[in-house]
């Protein structure tokens, strides 16, 4: 702070001078931190205010020196100053007045310079000569010290005779000035160093910022990649994998909660993975045996290890996990990175494919089995057809031969013959009867698998059929044998004629009856059931007889196989059953074992009508035939019977419950009778044979031009049935 005027007035002029000098020097030195610029400006202040010559030499102890200032204002000494600046500046090696101060670090005041002082401090004669020319009278060499270190020397000389020589007070002022100079140099140097350091730091900072920016960019790219890739990305930063961070996909895969900090199944810091179990090859995997854990702890890399996550809710997720260890500078595992692909869909597809493949294999197996079975059945049918053709031919020829035999025998029986001729004739008659049954049986074996049985369009309602035939069947079994039946009411209509079915079942019932003779609690049961595909009905005839051994069971349907005595069996009964049922498109089978009875299973196709229609009962249809010509009447009756009608003849049943009336122009009944008949019921139809047009107009009175046209008649009957069928009764027949 500058002195006030009153303070200044109290000081001595010399002191005031020193203060002014030092204040100016301080101001000058503080103008700039560039001492290479400020120190030379100090010369014009020191000279002439304080000395005639002024020099500042900077350097270090024992090191090179730099002369930053040598100033004087005497024109006479310009050359000397130039030489002293250029040639004899202190260099740190050769003798120089400055060097002693540099060595000692102490101020040197030479009040009066003598020849010896100059000789001691000159480098050579020329140096001494230059000094002599300058004639220095008094000198102060002041050390410049900063932080206890020599940094240079401030030298001041008095050369003018009118300037007082330096004294002790000047030395104090000089030392203060030296302190100011040293301080300025130190500050300048510090500042320069600081600036350099700051600059360097700034450069480093900029570089660091560039690096940080680049790193931020990489991190952002990496984060984007992590969140974009369709895979779970996992990073563990410690060998124990106590904390595993993952991307969003990883959190989704492991069903980690949004705020879960770690995906480690063994981590304690917010791990939410306790809600699932991890399996590999069906076995639960220990937490330290997972790919990430093996990589982080043992340094073992894993590629595409399949894991099954089984969650608490029972759902599954499949992952293909890869993991790679992260190594420290010494090559030891310090963590791991991993990737997990969700392969659940792939596994599901694989499982579906496997299942489908198994299904296909099963289907192929089943179809192959069915094909083999069909092939075997076809072969069997072909074989049976061949046998049937042969048998039918044989039966026919036998019948042709038996006819004259029976006629001859009958002729003989009408005569009175001596003994033992009558008994011989009776024996012959027995043989003929057997042969006749054999011939009939042989004819029944004729089945052509390639030619549909004509009876295929004939339908039989099982329950009604049984009601008609059960008495016949009962009479066919020996006394003491119970015949039971269980025929459900709502069974589809069968595609077989009633007569054929009766013959087949009769053969089986007769066989059963024979097997049950003289057995207690003997019974035969007939029952029916619809097969699951509803296209066939099983008619099962069971007995509790002695049953059959394997040999009998295997061959019982073959012609001429019989367990009965030959004299009462043709061996054709069951062969005929098979011929009838297979001829209707069905199958026969037998289940039996010795002592366990036998069950014959007739599987018969249902009618070709729709299943819904088949499940409905056929209405009981009755027809009245009053055609006058007996042959036409018989023909019409035959066609009607085969169309499922029960036929009545005569003129007095018109008012009965018939559904159809077939008459002709020769019939005495009038048109009024016809109208009355059809008018009595909405389903009633009348047909008039051998007329081109009906005598009365009614939609249910129709004309059949030619009675002998069987196909034409059948077509009319079909149209009648199509328009006249209705749901009928389904009475119980048990």
């Amino acid at each position, binding site marked *: 702070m500058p002195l006030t005027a009153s303070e200044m007035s109290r000081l001595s002029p010399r002191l005031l001078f020193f203060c002014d000098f030092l204040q100016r020097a301080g101001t000058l030195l503080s103008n700039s931190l560039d001492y290479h610029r400020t120190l030379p400006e100090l010369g014009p202040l020191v000279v002439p205010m304080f000395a005639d010559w002024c020099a500042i030499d900077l350097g270090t102890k024992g090191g090179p020196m730099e002369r930053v200032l040598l100033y004087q204002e005497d024109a006479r000494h310009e050359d000397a100053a130039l030489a002293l600046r250029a040639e004899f500046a202190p260099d740190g090696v050769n003798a120089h007045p400055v060097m002693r101060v540099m060595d000692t670090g102490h101020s040197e005041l030479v009040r009066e310079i003598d020849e010896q002082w100059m000789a001691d401090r000159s480098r050579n004669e020329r140096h001494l000569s230059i000094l002599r020319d300058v004639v220095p009278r008094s000198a102060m060499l002041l050390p410049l010290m900063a932080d206890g270190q020599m940094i240079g020397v401030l030298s001041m000389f008095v050369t003018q005779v009118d300037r007082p020589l330096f004294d002790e007070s000047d030395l104090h002022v000089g030392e203060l000035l030296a302190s100011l100079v040293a301080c300025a140099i130190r500050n300048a140097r510090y500042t320069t160093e600081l600036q350099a350091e700051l600059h360097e730091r700034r450069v480093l900072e900029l570089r660091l910022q560039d690096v940080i920016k680049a790193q931020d960019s990489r991190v952002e790219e990496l984060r984007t990649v992590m969140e974009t890739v369709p895979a779970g990305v996992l990073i563990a930063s410690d060998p124990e994998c106590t904390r595993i961070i993952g991307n969003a996909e990883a959190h989704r895969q492991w069903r980690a909660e949004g705020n879960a900090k770690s995906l480690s199944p063994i981590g304690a810091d917010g791990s939410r993975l306790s809600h699932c179990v991890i399996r590999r090859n069906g076995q639960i995997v220990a937490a330290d045996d997972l790919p990430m854990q093996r990589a982080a702890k043992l340094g073992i890399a894993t590629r595409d290890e399949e894991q099954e996550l089984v969650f608490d809710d029972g759902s599954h997720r499949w992952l293909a996990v890869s993991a790679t260890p992260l190594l420290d500078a010494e090559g030891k595992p310090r963590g791991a990175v991993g990737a997990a692909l969700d392969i659940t869909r792939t596994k599901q597809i694989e499982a579906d494919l496997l299942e489908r493949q198994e299904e296909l294999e099963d289907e192929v197996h089943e179809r192959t089995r069915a094909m083999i079975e069909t092939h075997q059945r076809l072969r069997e049918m072909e074989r049976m057809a061949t046998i049937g053709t042969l048998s039918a031919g044989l*039966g*026919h020829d036998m*019948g*042709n*031969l*038996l*006819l*004259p*035999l*029976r*006629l*001859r025998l*009958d*002729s003989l029986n*009408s005569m009175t013959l001596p003994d033992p001729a009558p008994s011989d004739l009776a024996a012959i008659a027995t043989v003929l009867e057997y042969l*006749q049954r054999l*011939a*009939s049986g042989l*004819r029944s074996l004729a089945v052509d698998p390639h030619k549909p049985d*004509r009876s295929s369009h004939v339908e039989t309602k099982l329950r009604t059929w049984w009601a008609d035939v059960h008495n016949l069947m009962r009479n066919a079994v020996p006394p003491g044998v119970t015949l039971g039946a269980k025929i459900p009411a709502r069974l589809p209509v069968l595609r077989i004629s009633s007569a054929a079915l009766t013959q087949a079942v009769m053969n089986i019932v007769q066989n059963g009856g024979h097997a049950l003779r003289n057995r207690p609690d003997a019974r035969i049961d007939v029952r029916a059931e619809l097969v699951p595909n509803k296209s066939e009905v099983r008619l099962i005839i069971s007995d509790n007889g002695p049953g059959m051994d394997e040999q009998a069971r295997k061959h019982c349907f073959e012609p001429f196989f019989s367990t009965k005595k030959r004299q009462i069996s043709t061996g054709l009964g069951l062969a005929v059953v098979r011929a009838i049922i297979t001829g209707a498109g069905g199958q026969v089978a037998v289940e039996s074992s010795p002592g366990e009875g036998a069950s014959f299973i007739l599987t018969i196709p249902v009618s070709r009508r729709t299943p819904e229609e088949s499940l409905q009962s056929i209405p009981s249809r009755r027809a009245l035939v009053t055609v*006058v*010509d*007996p*042959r*036409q*009447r*018989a*023909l019409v009756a*035959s*066609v009607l*019977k*085969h169309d499922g009608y029960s036929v009545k003849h005569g003129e007095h049943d018109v008012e009965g419950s018939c559904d159809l009336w077939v008459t002709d122009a*020769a019939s005495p009944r009038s048109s009024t009778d016809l109208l009355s008949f059809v008018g009595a019921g909405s389903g009633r139809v009348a047909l008039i044979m*051998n007329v081109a047009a009906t005598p009365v107009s009614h939609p249910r009175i129709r004309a059949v031009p030619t*009675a*002998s*046209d*069987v196909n034409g008649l059948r077509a009319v009957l079909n149209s009648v049935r199509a328009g006249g069928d209705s749901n009928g009764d389904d009475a119980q027949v048990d």
Partner: protein
Amino acid sequence: MATTRKWTDASRDAASIVCIDDNPLVKEAIARRIAMEKDFRWAGALGERDEIIERLLELSPDLVLLDIDMPGVDAFALVKTIGERLPNARVVMFTGYSHPEYLEQALANGAWGYLSKSESPQSLLDALRRVIRGEVVCGDDVS
């Protein structure tokens, strides 16, 4: 089919019968048995090699027992022809086959009966008598 034909046997004592069959054993046996019945008269037997219609016109039978299955002979066509040429002769078809369609075919062509060769002799004779009375006969085995 003729529907106006009328049985004209009332003036005769016995119905004359002709058998058409390819098997001589059958024909001879039938002839032997028919001859034993007073209401029948055996008119003769014909085979597949005979001029059947011409011979029938000569014999003029009341009843023709016709085998269906003769080599080279369409028995159903023959029934129709007999009906046309000999309207007073009643044809009974005689067969070892029991197809229902044969029955209908026989009746449609004008036959009065369709009998099985497995019928008993008495049944056969009864059936022939019924035909002569104007009935149509169909054996149990064939209907």
